[in-house]
């Protein structure tokens, strides 16, 4: 067993103990970095625990490694990263998720606003929506292929489907919980119809809609692996499915890490909208 992961773990523990006493902005970068290093060390240790030696027929010993260590994952993904394939696949995946997510938002927000505003509309469609919501996108694969063929459109459909339900549910709840005093004020000043919607209902719901969009984008990005199981020939999900079939677990790990990093980026992007003047009021200040 190698000793370096334990050295890293020791350093991490000391760093965390010291960083707790330091003032900002030091621990802000130090702490997450330490935790990431500890994660890599534990990953490495768990790989070594699970690997074992076999005595071959000629008497020589061979080490059987079940799962790639972080270093092996890096080595195995390096080529794909450097020659641009990984980047191209990442772009392909982000494109599919972006299209599916935007289509879902364009359908779900108006539907949610309508069903949230009209009690009868809510009563009519909410049970169906809540009934369809828990069905995994995996279950829809067959139907997706039937409708859209073995094409990009199928993957996009699955992503749109997965992000549709959180957005429509969040938007409906947002409209249904608008404080009555906003609507009364608006009507008092003579607002009605579309103007009431544009100037009061929509802005009042915006923070909650934004939260549901953020959740939905997280889910959409998570679904990419399932969506690209349909025989598309590009994308990070494709890399994972293909790597699994070829027992190339190093590239599987590389794609997983890439998905994780892009996911962090997408979440940061969505959160940056929370600082806009029109919605900032809906996000209570978080303890620093």
């Amino acid at each position, binding site marked *: 067993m190698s000793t370096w992961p334990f050295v890293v773990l020791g350093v991490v523990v000391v760093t965390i103990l010291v960083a707790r006493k330091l003032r900002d902005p030091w621990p802000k970068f130090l702490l997450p970095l330490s935790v990431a290093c500890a994660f890599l060390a534990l990953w490495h240790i768990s790989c070594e625990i699970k690997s074992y030696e076999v005595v071959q027929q000629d008497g020589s010993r061979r080490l059987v490694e079940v799962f790639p260590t972080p270093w092996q994952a890096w080595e195995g993904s390096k080529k794909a990263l450097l020659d641009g394939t990984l980047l191209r696949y990442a772009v392909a995946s982000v494109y599919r998720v972006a299209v599916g997510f935007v289509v879902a938002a364009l359908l779900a927000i108006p539907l949610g606003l309508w069903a949230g505003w009209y009690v009868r509309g809510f009563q009519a469609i909410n049970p169906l929506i809540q009934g369809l919501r828990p069905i995994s996108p995996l279950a829809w694969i067959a139907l997706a292929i039937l409708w859209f063929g073995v094409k990009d459109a199928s993957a996009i459909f699955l992503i749109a489907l997965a992000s549709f339900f959180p957005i429509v549910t969040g938007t409906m709840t947002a409209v249904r919980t608008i*404080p009555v005093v*906003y609507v009364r*004020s608006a009507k*008092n000043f*003579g607002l009605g119809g579309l103007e009431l919607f544009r*100037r009061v209902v929509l802005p009042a719901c915006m923070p909650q809609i934004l939260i549901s969009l953020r959740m939905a984008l997280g889910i959409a990005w998570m679904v990419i692996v399932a969506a690209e199981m349909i025989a598309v020939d590009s994308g990070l999900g494709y890399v994972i499915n293909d790597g699994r079939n070829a027992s190339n677990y190093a590239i599987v790990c590389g794609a997983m890490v890439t998905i994780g990093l892009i996911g962090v980026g997408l979440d940061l992007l969505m959160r940056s909208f929370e600082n806009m003047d029109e919605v900032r*009021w809906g996000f209570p200040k978080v303890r620093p």
Partner: protein
Amino acid sequence: MSRASSTSTAQRPVAVSAPAAPKIVIRGVTRIFQRKDDELRVLDDIHLDVAPGEFVCLLGPSGCGKSTLLNIVGGFDAPDAGTVLVDGQSVDGPSPRRIFVFQEYGIFPWASVWDNIALGLRGRTKAEQHEIVTRYIELVGLQGFERAYPAELSGGMRQRVAVARALAVSPDVIFMDEPFGALDSLTRLSMRSEILRIWQQEKMTILFVTHDVDEALQLADRIVVMSPRPGRIREIVAIDSPHPRDIGSTEYGRTKNHLYELLGVSHAV
């Protein structure tokens, strides 16, 4: 404080009439809330006339129906019996002629101070909007905060925005439902003198709901004391002394004691 005259009214609508053609006429208004197995008579046969330009406070403990009465007069709720007339017309919904100022959160947090105050001015030209909004921002003393959002303002400043937004449409009547209830006591005091100054300048009719005896005494021409379950008018107390009122006078103390008696609570603690 010169004199406080009382009229016992609950059963005699004629006695509540104010002189001249009344701005608001409330006749036999009754409101019943249905509950699971019984019904709650929130308002029971309310009669009240309010003169143009009059400042009337509805005073009573929580649950006496004063907010419900305000909602009915404002057009947000309908009575189960009785009628409400404003300028001789029966009220069938809210109108920009009669603006509500709510206790809190009535202004829109997603819009700047300027856009909030301009809410009722959508039909006007840009130049008119600019002139009106500027005037009322000055009137309530919010110069320099035009671009600020409500979350950046103190509670008192937010209520100033609500008042300016109401005034911007030049309403005949302003309804205020415990507008200063969420403010600290010092801010509340200064907001009271602000609203009196504005009322004397703009000469609109104000119907003001409060459960604060001092607030009613400092502001109102007449105080309508209400009692709960069922919500009824207990007595209407006219306050004849001019503003600014001396809150240290014996007359003030006597009226205050009388109001506490009507409310059924002991003044001395």
